[in-house]
Each structure stands twice: as C-alpha cells, then as structure tokens.
C-alpha cells in the first residue's frame, strides 16, 4: 500500500531517519558546549563572551562597518564627486 505517493516510486517515510539524525546531533559532544548550554564549557564560553573585554570586542567588530557606512553615505550623497567639491570650495570662498 502506498500511503504517501511522491515523485519517486520507491519513496518511503524518512521520519525515523530524521529522528535518529536529530538525536545524534543533540547528543553530540559539540552541542553540549554551545554558548547557551548549561555544561561546564558552555558556562566558560558565556563567562568569556560577556567578560570585561565585551565592549572592546564589540567596538573592534563594528568599527570597520561604521567606516563602510560613512563611505557609502558619502557616495550616495555625492560627497566624493568633483563637482560637489568644487561647489563647496566656491561657497567657502564666498
């Protein structure tokens, strides 16, 4: 009896395989060390992440992106065009 007709004639439910794979992933050692797990490694990761270096690390992470944003804003508003520079110089002279 074909309960679930699909595009492939040999198709069969794969729920059991999916469950086993999910179980293996959840029981794996690496998942026990996730930053929000209650394991010893998880706690150590959290302690280090949210330690005194957090503001500095965040600043380090974000600083190039602030410069990217400034550059793209400059391009969008024509801040780097020759005409704009010439116009600014003319206004400053007046």
């Amino acid at each position, binding site marked *: 009896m074909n309960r679930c007709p699909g595009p492939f004639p040999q198709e069969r439910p794969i729920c059991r395989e999916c469950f086993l794979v999910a179980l293996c992933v959840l029981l794996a050692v690496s998942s026990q060390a996730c930053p929000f797990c209650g394991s010893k490694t998880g706690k150590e*990761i959290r302690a*280090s992440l949210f330690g005194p270096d957090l503001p500095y690390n965040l600043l380090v*992470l974000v600083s190039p992106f602030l410069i990217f944003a400034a*550059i*793209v804003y400059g391009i969008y508003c024509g801040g780097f065009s020759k005409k704009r520079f010439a116009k600014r110089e003319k206004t400053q002279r007046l």
Partner: protein
Amino acid sequence: MNKRPLIAAGTLLGIGMGGFVDGILFHQVLQLHSMLSAKMPQDELLNVKISMVWDGLFHALTWLTTAFGIVLLFQAGRRSDCPWSGRSLWGSSFLGWGIFNVVEGVIDHYLLGIHHVVECLGLSAYDHLFLASGGVLIFFGSLLIRFR
C-alpha cells in the same frame, strides 16, 4: 542622469561579498585566522568556540550590509534618473570589495592587530598582499565605473 544610487548599492554589495570571501574562505574553509585569533590562540576548544561566536557576529553584520545593498539596488532600479548600467554595478562591486580589504586590513590587521591573514606568521607579507589587493580592486572598480 544620476549614477550615485547604483554605485552606492554596488559598493555595499561589494563590501558584503568581500566580507563573505574573507569570512568563508579565510575564517572557515582555510581557517587561517578568525576574528580574534591574535588574542585567542586557536588551539583550545574554548577559544575556538568563543571565536566562532565573534565570527558569527561578523557574518551577521556582513549579511546586513549585503541585504541593505539589495534594498539600495532595488531603489536604484525604480528611479527613472538612474542609468541601469551593468558596468557601473560591476565596477562599484569591485570598488566595495577593495574598500573592504583596505579598511578591514588597516583597522584589524595593522592598527588593532586583532588578527592577521595567516595567524601563525603574525603580521606578514600576506597582510601586505591583502591590503594591496584592496588597492588594485579599488583602482579596477573605479576604472570600470568611469569607463563609458
């Protein structure tokens, strides 16, 4: 005609793509460095796990940059005064990639020293090469944008 919206969109997309090349190729596939690898030697599970979080945050910002580039590109496409030029888009994408390499290289590799291209060598010729590649990409991208 106003090419600036298209160039801004292409530059953002280039910055995003450059970030993904760095993150995917150097951080993950080749594992030459990670975001904070100069501070945290990558020979302990704890340091690797912490670096993975910071690499993830870097990828998140890169993703946001790319997404914002798509929004700007969509807006540029709807403007009647913006010429729809493939050459300008490619040029600005190379420009963006070059800007990524130069800005990220100067700040992270030289000024702050939080990581280097090949971490086990420290500040090496590869960092100079990374910076130079940024300069070449900026030059090539600018040429493409100006070429009519």
